[in-house]
């Protein structure tokens, strides 16, 4: 094993990264540390295996013998379980954020988020979004990704914050140029507002 890190320490570091992140936010997938922990698992396993072999060679019953080798094996086994738990918690927590994304951004990931994801995570996002899409198709196309906040008036006044360009709004094209002000259907504007590309003008 590299260095003299005590068992499970790196794995715990990985979990601490999650704990320190702003709630609901995503940091870049830590490939480097993640792979070191995977490697640590392999090392534990080979040492576990070596001790098993040694006991067998000595004619001991691996199941029942309680010698120093047995306790060595036990410690490697437990360390492996611990590393697994930390790795799983790391990806599981991230999967929750990714699930959340499929509700919020539709089917295409913003680039700054995509850069933070591992390849399996990108695939997971796609497959989870499509599970959601297919549920909605099964409900005759009822869109569950809109109406995230309770409705007020059907039309709202918004100011455009980004150059969005000419976009189909209802049955006509509207030029959503930066700083322009429009009366839009709330449901048409909602996604833009969540992404910070428009703001609601009140009063």
């Amino acid at each position, binding site marked *: 094993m590299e260095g003299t890190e005590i068992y499970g320490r790196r794995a715990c570091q990985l979990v601490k990264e999650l*704990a320190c992140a702003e*709630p609901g936010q995503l940091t870049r997938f830590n490939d480097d540390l993640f792979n070191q922990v995977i490697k640590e698992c392999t090392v534990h396993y080979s040492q576990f295996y070596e001790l098993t072999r040694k006991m067998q060679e000595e004619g001991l019953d691996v199941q029942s013998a309680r010698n120093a080798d047995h306790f060595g094996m036990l410690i490697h086994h437990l360390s492996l379980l611990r590393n697994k738990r930390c790795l799983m918690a790391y990806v599981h927590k991230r999967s929750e954020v990714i699930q959340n994304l499929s509700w919020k951004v539709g089917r295409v990931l913003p680039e700054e988020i995509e850069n933070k994801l591992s390849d399996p995570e990108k695939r997971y996002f796609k497959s989870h979004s499509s599970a959601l899409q297919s549920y909605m198709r099964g409900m005759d196309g009822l869109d569950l990704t809109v109406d995230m*906040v*309770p*409705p007020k*008036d059907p039309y709202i006044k918004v100011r455009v914050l980004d150059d969005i360009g000419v976009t189909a709004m209802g049955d006509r094209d509207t030029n959503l140029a930066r700083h322009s002000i429009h009366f839009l259907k709330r449901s048409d504007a909602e996604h833009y507002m969540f992404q910070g590309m428009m703001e609601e003008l009140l009063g």
Partner: protein
Amino acid sequence: MAGQSDPQSSVFSAAEMEFLAEDEIIEVVPNMRMEPLNLISGDYGPFRPQIAAQVPLWLAVALKKRGKCTIRPPEWMSIESLTQVLESERDSPKEFQPLPFHYVEISRLLFDHARDDIPDIYMVRSLIEDIRDVRFHKVESGLETISARTHAVKLKNLSAMEVNIVRPFVVRTLQSFYKHDSPEMIQQPVQMSTSRPQATDRGPRRDLRRR
């Protein structure tokens, strides 16, 4: 939300509480004529000029915004009754006065959209703020009295928004006391109990109006 392990603790947003409050019925006086509305949420109207009609608050606000009616502030929002509520709130340090479950949301909606329909609006607003402050102060002192495992807390006359504000904290607090003050955790010391702090003295269990 802070409770990483417990996302359940905050279930409704303030906007959702407001949404629920918008279903409360209120009186409007239309200045136009409109046939009855057969809505999913119920039938309202007919609307005749100067004839009061009962509608849900969301509808009242929509009509008001379009200049089609005035809103009659509910009786409990009058200066007399608010003054009396405020006095009673101050006089009874533990009890909460009965107010509409959504009084915080309703009053805000009316202040925002029907200011010209509320006589002495500044006075009304400040009375409601004082009432809210006094009540919340009581909620806080109520919270201070939680000191042991509690199975049930009764919150007589607490309003929707007040509940919503304390909910995440209360749920977590009760859970912590439930865990720390459980028979599994509190074992009688078998030996040498004299040199230990008297932490096992749980005293008579009392808390916020426990039943």
